[in-house]
């Protein structure tokens, strides 16, 4: 067989962002996924339109290069994907050497899991004259952060660990970040909140709730408190703090301009946040039921829910945003149909599976009670989030 040592000739490559843009736009790409079967089953690259995909593990190319090359359809725009970009680079090199043009997806699934894509929330004219609101979509994990901006000031909600990205985004839009908020102590990803606020010297707020040792320096926020974005003079936008416990005892939602509800993991567009991650599904489940049925009850159907997670590309709207009118979600989200706390808890219990083992470690880091090197965190964060009470249902849809 041919020498499969990675060659010195540079292999053409494509960044995840460009790949997703091409695939979202319906460009006829052929994705050659060279990961092993278990990895493929656990986590796939998804775009807004289905991607033609062929699976040939990279070790098949090592064993029988000619037969493996022959399994790649000819005359296609081939991009090769693996876990971290190393094996796919080797395979793309072999394909190019064999006369099959192919590009390597730089950084593989790790890069896919880190990639951040901003989308502006469509506002009406009156709103747009006062503020801007962006949803920052971590496509590979299904995590959503937000930037609320008015009059040159910005508040960042649920930032990811790549804080440089958020700093650059603010700079690019001429915004000064005045506050960093987390909706809750996240379990599926390490928050960028503490590091971003410390670096910028601005307040950071998150509530862990009773029973947790929170070692982050935080500025506590009261239920009903109003945070004004945009300074003291001129145009401003109000962000109202709403305590919405249940997914975690400290879960907090933020109502922007009276109409945009950043719900964290309280309500998603297809489910609600699972209340079992702390090991107190009955207690937290009751809290969540009360939040959903009582605390959110005064909000109008027109309020737009902007969650911290989504379950898959089927939840992306035509505008590229993950959102849902509260009135629609009240009718369609299965967990919001429960008539009693007991029924609600029973349905949640039936729907969830055990969370990934890494969640307990991530929670400790987000509480500030432990720390971990970046490569370990990267490994913990691999895969889509499993924060919804309908994790099984969402997995079945993929």
């Amino acid at each position: 067989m041919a020498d499969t040592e990675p060659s010195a000739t540079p292999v053409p490559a494509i960044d995840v962002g460009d790949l997703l843009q091409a695939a979202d736009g319906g460009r006829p790409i052929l994705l050659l996924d060279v990961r092993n079967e278990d990895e493929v089953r656990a986590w796939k690259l998804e775009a807004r339109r289905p991607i033609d995909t062929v699976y040939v593990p990279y070790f098949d190319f090592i064993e029988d290069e000619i037969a493996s090359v022959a399994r790649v359809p000819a005359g296609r725009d081939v991009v090769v994907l693996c876990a971290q970009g190393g094996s796919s680079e080797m395979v793309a090199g072999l394909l190019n050497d064999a006369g099959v043009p192919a590009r390597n997806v730089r950084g593989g699934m790790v890069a896919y899991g880190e990639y951040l894509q901003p989308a502006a929330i469509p506002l009406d004219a009156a709103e747009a004259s006062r503020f801007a609101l962006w949803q920052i979509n971590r496509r590979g994990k299904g995590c959503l952060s937000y930037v609320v901006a008015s009059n040159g000031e910005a508040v960042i909600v649920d930032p990811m660990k790549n804080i440089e990205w958020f700093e650059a985004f603010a700079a690019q839009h001429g915004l000064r970040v005045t506050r960093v908020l987390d909706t809750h102590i996240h379990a599926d990803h390490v928050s960028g909140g503490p590091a971003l606020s410390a670096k910028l010297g601005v307040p950071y707020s998150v509530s862990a709730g009773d029973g947790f040792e929170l070692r982050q320096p935080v500025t506590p926020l009261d239920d009903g408190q109003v945070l004004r974005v945009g300074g003291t003079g001129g145009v401003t936008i109000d962000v109202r703090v709403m305590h919405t416990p249940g997914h975690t005892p400290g879960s907090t939602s933020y109502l922007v301009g009276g109409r945009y509800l950043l719900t964290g993991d309280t309500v998603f567009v297809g489910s609600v946040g699972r209340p079992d991650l702390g090991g107190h599904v009955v207690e937290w489940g009751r809290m969540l039921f009360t939040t959903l049925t009582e605390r959110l009850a005064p909000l109008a159907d027109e309020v737009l829910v902007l969650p911290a997670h989504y379950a898959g590309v089927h939840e992306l709207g035509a505008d590229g945003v993950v959102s849902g009118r509260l009135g629609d979600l009240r009718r369609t989200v299965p967990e919001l149909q429960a008539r009693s706390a007991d029924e609600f808890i029973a349905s949640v219990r039936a729907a969830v599976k055990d969370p990934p083992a890494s969640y307990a470690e991530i929670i400790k880091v987000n509480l500030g009670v432990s720390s971990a090197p970046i490569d370990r965190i990267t490994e913990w964060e691999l895969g889509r989030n499993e924060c919804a009470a309908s994790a099984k249902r969402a997995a079945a849809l993929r």
Partner: protein
Amino acid sequence: MALNKLDARGLKCPMPIVKAKKALDAMAPGDLLEITATDRGSVTDFQGWVKTNRRAVLKEQRQERDEIGRDLYIHLIERSDV
């Protein structure tokens, strides 16, 4: 029956498999190859590779921790006489 050792610490995918394949090619049936890797992905990769390469039989996989706290993934492979 020889026991060969392959140090694949610090190597990222695909190198542990590339090197294991090379070492296996040079071994006699019945010989053993012990690969020590630091890449966690090597665990499922070796499981998958032995399904493709019928001369490689995965005898054992275990996890240890070295003196600087790195997780080590150790794979023991036997060269079959296929």
